[in-house]
């Protein structure tokens, strides 16, 4: 495989933490900050920074509300984010070696 056949990876998604967040939101309609933190094992500050990047790119929507007098941050994948994630997966495939054909 030559370098020309590799598809470029979206720099917004190409980070382990942002990729992890988008993967969760792909199968979940919404996820709380607490769940994202627990699942990704990230710190509050780190996760907030990466969520902000995803939100700025329009890939996720962050909703702030209150639950039992405590602030609640909920994240939802947008259509733009879903499409970008699909493109990222397709691009990722081009980096994996093609299985050798049986003679």
């Amino acid at each position, binding site marked *: 495989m030559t370098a020309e056949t590799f598809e470029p990876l979206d720099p917004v998604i190409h980070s382990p933490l942002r990729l992890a967040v988008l993967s969760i939101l792909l199968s*979940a309609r919404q996820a709380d900050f607490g769940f994202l933190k627990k*699942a990704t094992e990230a710190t509050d500050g780190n996760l907030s920074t990466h969520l902000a990047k995803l939100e700025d790119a329009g890939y996720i929507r962050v909703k702030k509300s209150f639950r039992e007098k405590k602030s609640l941050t909920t994240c939802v994948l947008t259509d733009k984010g879903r499409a970008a994630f699909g493109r990222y997966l397709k691009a990722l495939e081009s980096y*994996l070696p093609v299985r050798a054909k049986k003679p």
Partner: protein
Amino acid sequence: MNDDQAREDIRIIKAMLDKTRRAATESGTLFIVWGVLITLALAGTWVLGLLKEYRWEWAVWVGVTVVGWVFSAVYGYRRDRKSEVKTYAQIAARHLYIACGAGFLLVGIVLPRLGAYSHEAISILVSVVSGILFFVMGGLYEWPLLRVFGLVWWAGAAGLTLVKDNDRILLYTVLFVVAYLLPVCILRAKYKREQSRT
């Protein structure tokens, strides 16, 4: 990026999808509560049958249904408020529970009370709705065993047509233990196993 980094990305995606799926596993609590209520109602119906007091059977089932629906509504509301993640499978499952709940209410109480058919047909029709519930749940939670229990319910519905009166109630009770209580116990065990892995 090289092959190894691409594989690492795929590992992250798989791990996150798995964590999300585990977090959204059905706890089975509602099924257990309904199981207990229906067992009580079946026992009540059977006893009323022995006493030839058929006219009170509807009251037993209405009572059980009201208690069940109130508990389900309160439990569902509280679980929704507490849940950290809401998956598409959970949303579809909730709609399935509501649809089947309405189905049970209609075929088990409302329609026979309106004279649409004899109360003898209730257990047969309830079995058909139960089959739909378990079969679709098996698809939603990607669990083939639940689909098998759906098929057992449908086979049981056909089998119930072969017996009558109190024998039908007795056969339905056996069907209920095998095709409802058994999968619910397995569901609960699976939930506890998934939670311990989280």
